[in-house]
């Protein structure tokens, strides 16, 4: 005989909560009985539920009340460096974001050992021949492509024409 205690124990035994459609399948009861048992638990404030989409099906995520949310705040830090995505107003290109690269490198015990070139993963548009011919002055690739405004030395416009 499956009662509220069994359901509650199952929910408690799963860290992060359990989906309602999994509970009744696991316990071998029908969904009607499951939802009635859960509504009893909800009335007693022993579980909470939130509407979620799981495997393309809308269901509820059931969590036991006494289960405290784990503290994940430290994960925003890499060493002393706080998440670079906070307050970032550039175009978000994580693949080529220098700030994110520096943050990832700070996860290493000795960041100085790592070799990297801070995420300049795109060829500046000015080096693509067509662009150079049509608009030789367009050196503002830093703002458009890589999603940040200034390079490390604080200069905004770099004259690449000399390099060519």
């Amino acid at each position, binding site marked *: 005989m499956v009662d509220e205690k069994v359901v509650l124990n199952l929910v408690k035994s799963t860290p992060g909560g359990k989906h309602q459609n999994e509970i009744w399948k696991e316990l071998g009861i029908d969904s009607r009985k499951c939802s009635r048992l859960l509504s009893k638990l909800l009335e007693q404030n022993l579980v909470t539920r939130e509407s979620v989409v799981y495997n393309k099906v809308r269901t509820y995520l059931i969590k036991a009340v006494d289960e405290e949310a784990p503290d994940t*705040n430290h994960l925003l830090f890499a060493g002393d460096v706080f*998440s*670079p995505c906070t*307050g970032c107003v550039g175009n978000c290109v994580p693949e080529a974001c220098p700030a994110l690269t520096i943050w*990832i490198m700070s*996860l*290493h015990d000795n960041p100085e050992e790592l070799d*990297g070139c801070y995420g300049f993963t795109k*060829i500046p548009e000015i080096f693509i021949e067509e662009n150079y011919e049509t608009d030789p002055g367009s050196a503002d690739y830093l703002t458009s492509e890589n999603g940040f405004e200034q390079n490390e030395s604080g200069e905004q416009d770099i004259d690449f024409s000399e*390099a060519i």
Partner: protein
Amino acid sequence: MVDYNDPLINGYFKRLIGENGITLLKTIPEGEHTDEEMYAMLNPIRKKASDLKVQTKLLKDELKAREKKKSSDDEETDETEIPEKTIEEIEEEIQRNEIEINELKEEAEEKEEEIGLNEIRKILFILSENNFTICKRERDTNSGWLTFRWQLNLVDIEHRLEREKRKLYRNLLRRQEYEKENLFYICPSHCVRLTFDESTEMEFMCPLCGDNLIYEENEIIKELLEKRIGEFQTANPSMFRKDERY
């Protein structure tokens, strides 16, 4: 009450509004304030100097008006109304004020790091975008002038931190996929980092300095990413899913 010295809170606001923003948050007491009041709280010496400047300007205007009046109707003066201050007294006061203004300016430069009015407004707008302030707008019926009164409201901070974590997690997943799928070539002098396809287009030459590109071993970055993503997933599997779409 939020503890601004907590490394987490401090780090978050430092990224969001910078050092000056944290100074602002620490200085402003609870309640509604206008941006100009905040400026006065943050820069008391400068505020005093600017008030004195306004006062001096008024005195100068009065002086001019009196001299004009004196020259226009010097013969018709009844001398019935006795002026509060004589011209000499006003001149003296102006001189005193100017000396004091200079002293205050010097003092301000030594003691205060100025946070300008524009910067304060910028900080307030960023805070408002992130739902950390309650803003009330009042319109003066006579002049039509708008006054914004700001009140700090940081109760939502836990929720914002959760959002930041999700944002970071999604970006890390995207980066991980990119690092896994590509081979990278870098310039020895760190000008560019290109994928294999891009390097082939550039004939394995650096487009900036012309040096030969070399293969970059990105195993360490991949490991670091995998470790941190794993930490996210084990800490809260329901929030940080493996199949997260970005």
